[in-house]
């Protein structure tokens, strides 16, 4: 059998040491993604560093932000009182992900670091630049119904599958990272990357760095929020497109807005121009339509996924309408 060693350190220091010494080591949290990839032969770590003994489960309110530990479970976060009170959008996004069973195992850190579900990435005997740089992109001219319409390169058109991350990017979260060079903070926006010429790199985490948690700044988005996930079945399916919409409406005017999309790019796709088009405008269908048009500018699809452009537009409209209608 393919051998690997397994250890379960109890301090973050020991965890990052164990990882940085070994080029082919991986952290493991809930294991719901990594174990699958190991079974399929997509990833073959020689060492698993189990981080579940680290004290990273806490969800706490701090001045100016909400802190969520990297090991907090998706199910716990989605039901947490502080989360539903301060950032209900995050709760909605989490509940739209995977299944109840998976959410009971999946962690916040593992969720943001889960790998793409591209068919070609998942099947070692098919070409994929992300899995095997230089082998080609199987999806570019293949079955690309689930693939990117924004920010892709001809090396990779995969999308990031996380629902949680779409809410995180919309809420301007930061990722707290600890590594051989100490602590650093990465804006969620910059955490995941576009594929460019190096699709094998999903994100900006350096070798040996451990995600400790996330911080979400306090914001006004406590009521008029919605996470809309369009999918092929009612649950337990990845998004065709998804929209995280958050509005701060005063009277009839949109004071502030956040908008991000999932299922459309190699990273959670924040729609800053569309947000600008919402702010200061009346919360009407007309405004939402304009924002949706702006949001989809520059989108470009492939043989099987061009539907995502009109669908994305409609999904944004629907998400904004639903968010605005909440009382």
């Amino acid at each position, binding site marked *: 059998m393919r051998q690997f060693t397994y250890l379960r350190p109890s301090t973050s220091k020991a965890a990052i040491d164990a990882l940085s010494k070994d080029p082919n080591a991986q952290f493991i949290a809930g294991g719901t993604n990594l174990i699958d990839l190991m079974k399929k032969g997509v990833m073959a770590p020689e060492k698993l560093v189990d981080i579940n003994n680290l004290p990273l489960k806490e969800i706490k309110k701090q001045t100016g932000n909400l802190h969520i530990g990297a090991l907090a479970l998706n199910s716990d976060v989605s039901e947490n009182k502080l989360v539903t009170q301060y950032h209900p959008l995050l709760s909605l996004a989490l509940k739209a992900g995977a299944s109840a069973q998976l959410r009971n195992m999946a962690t916040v850190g593992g969720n943001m670091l889960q790998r793409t579900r591209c068919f070609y990435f998942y099947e070692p005997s*098919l070409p994929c630049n992300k899995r095997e740089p230089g082998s080609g992109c199987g999806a570019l001219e*293949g079955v690309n119904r689930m693939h990117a319409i924004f920010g892709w390169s001809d090396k990779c058109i995969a999308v990031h599958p996380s629902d949680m991350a779409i809410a995180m990017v919309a809420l301007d979260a930061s990722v707290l990272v600890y590594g051989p060079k100490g602590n650093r903070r990465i804006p969620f926006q910059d955490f995941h990357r576009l594929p460019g010429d190096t699709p094998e790199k999903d994100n900006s985490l350096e070798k040996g760095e451990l995600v400790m948690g996330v911080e979400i700044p306090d914001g006004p988005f406590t009521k008029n929020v919605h996470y809309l996930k369009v999918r*092929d079945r*009612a*649950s337990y399916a990845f998004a065709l497109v998804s929209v995280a919409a958050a509005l701060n409406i005063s009277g009839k005017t949109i004071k502030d807005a956040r908008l991000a999309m999932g299922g459309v790019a190699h990273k959670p796709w924040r729609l800053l121009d569309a947000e600008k088009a919402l702010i200061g405008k009346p919360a009407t269908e007309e405004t939402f339509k304009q924002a949706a048009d702006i949001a989809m500018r520059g989108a470009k699809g492939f043989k099987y996924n061009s539907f995502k452009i*009109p669908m994305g537009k*409609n999904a944004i409209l*629907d998400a904004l309408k639903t968010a605005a209608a909440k009382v």
Partner: protein
Amino acid sequence: MWENLFSEGKPGALDRVDGKQKVTGAAKYAAEYNLGNLSHAVLVESTIAKGRIKNIDTKQAERAPGVIGIIHHGNAPKVPGYDTGDNPAKPPTGGEPFRIFQNARVYFAGQPIAVVVADTYERALYAATLVKTEYDKDEHETDVEENKDKANRPKGPRFEDYVRGEANAYKTAPVKVEQEYILPIEVHNPMELHATTVVWEAEDKVKVYDKTQGVKATQKSIMDAFKLKEQNVQVIADFVGGGFGSALRTWPHVIAVILAAKKVNRPVKLVLTRPQMFTMVGYRPYTRQRMGVGATMDGKLVGITHEAISETSTYEEFTEGTVNMSKFMYACPNVNTNYKIVALDKSTPTWMRGPGEATGAWALECAIDELAYALSIDPVQFRIKNYAEMDQQRKLPWSSNFLKECYEKGAEAIGWNKRNPKVRSMREGDWLVGYGMATGTFGAGRGRATAKATLLADGTLLLQSAVSDSGPGTATAMVGIASETLGLSPSKITFDLGDSSLPPGPTQGGSTTTSTLGSAVYDICIALQQKLLEVAAAKEGSFLKDAKFEELSFKDGAISRKTDSAKKISYTEVLKQSNLPQIELTKDSQGGDERSKYSMYSFSVHFVQVHVHSLTGVVRVKKAVTVADAGKIVNKKTAGSQMIGGVVGGIGMALMEEGIFDHRFGRYVNNNLADYHVPVHADVPHVEVLFVDKKDPYTNPMGTKGLGEIAIIGFAPAVANAVYHATGKRIRELPITPDKLI
């Protein structure tokens, strides 16, 4: 008899006799026989779709820990039966038959090309990754659309072009619809993976625990392949975790594991992986259908033209009755059909729930709906207007046909007449609301079966027959039939199945088990009553002396005269007073010539209400009413579950199921249950099941017809028709995913 069948405590409302075993985990499936010295097999698959194996290097794999043996075409023992006859392959479509491990040919991607046997599953799995194969690759073809022109009519009279009246007469009709309908590949994906555990008990004697819908058929295939005597091949399938048709055949991997067990001289267990379930146990084939339907202004059908192009492998000819329903279903003077298949470099398709008819009904029932709308006639009324008083193809009277009652019951239950019939007229917020319906039908067959009955001195009855139960609740239905026929409490009756050494029973397929086996059970219960009478009457001074069978009542485990229920003798007493430890009878049972006098079909009508999101195109089935004319219903609980299961399958077929190929590689890309979508709970609304529940006078002694297939046949078009009513969009390519409605 058969009155008040469904009242409490009666056999028609029985709980599953094996329900407790199933929910507590006591039920044993083919992969759960952990025999002593058991070894584990893993199949190595081809990664190319067509060509030859140039070299297969097993050195590294053989050195891996725990490996006991690796078998492939270079070292496999001969399968003696392969030299004679076609077993296990059916006639090839043109190429050679596929004979596992007997030559270097690759016919499809995912073909088993070697089997690794090791002491544990994990070690076998790992060693399998070390087998290195080089191929001489040929160009492959896996796309029906690209190869339509190469499609041919299968040989044999069943597939001759059919013409009644004038061909293409629909074209002359004042109102006509001409459209094409596409059905993608669907994969059975029962929850239980196909598994086989084999033990050679002697040089020429083998015992096989297998996931099979037919223990006798599998036994026969193994006998033929390995030239073994019937008594030396035992096939066991005590429980089967779903099949939907995938376990109707003895697939090559079963032969492979039997070979492997022989070669390593140890019991071997093989469990297919989920991806292997896509390439090794069949699928519903991709089918493109062209329909032409035309009617007079007042809604009388003038002509139906139904053409289908489907696929098969290069090494076997798979066919199904895709265009059959169009031939007999509606009163229509002019009908012509044409059915072709194209041989491609993929594995052979197989029967999947509602084989042929589910595909055909998808096209016919959408086209009929389109025509009804074109005529501005209510789709239900249009069907009633064209109701066939007799089988239009065979010109025979129906044995029974309560379709009109089905339409009425279903329409009432869903509130059909309260809907606004105008297209895109109903809304709930951003959701468009639509109603749709469609009809299904499937032949009500009856085959041959033998049942054995043993009535013991303690008053319990053991019934036995070599059938397997892939889920419908066969033993429960048989206990019900026996109880009602013999007049004995169900709690005293046991039904033994799932073992080829029992008296021969039928393969569970084509919705025939209850009719076939139930008739055998019925017959043997009558024979048992006659025997009881004979034994009782022979006793000195019996009050039954000279009694005629017809004058007697067999009730609550006792015999009495119909005219005097007070005076009776219990079955146990009959045995006791004659010092008999038991009465044992075996009886073969089959129908007479009724099938040449009557046309026998089951019918279903499905009504659905859907919601379609006007912005995102998401479709939700909100209500489903499914009505069956399946003759007498033997057990309402299990029959109801069958119908609900059909609806769940129908929702999958309508909205999400699709085996997706990347034709550049000739391979599936979504060969797992995360990417091949079947309905989850949230996709399935409350399902209302209604039965006509009227005895068919001719099909068999119970008056049952089949149920399993009609539960799904016609459901997908009902959904598509409802989507049209909701949105004004006709989706003619399944599945109806949101992208198609944007």
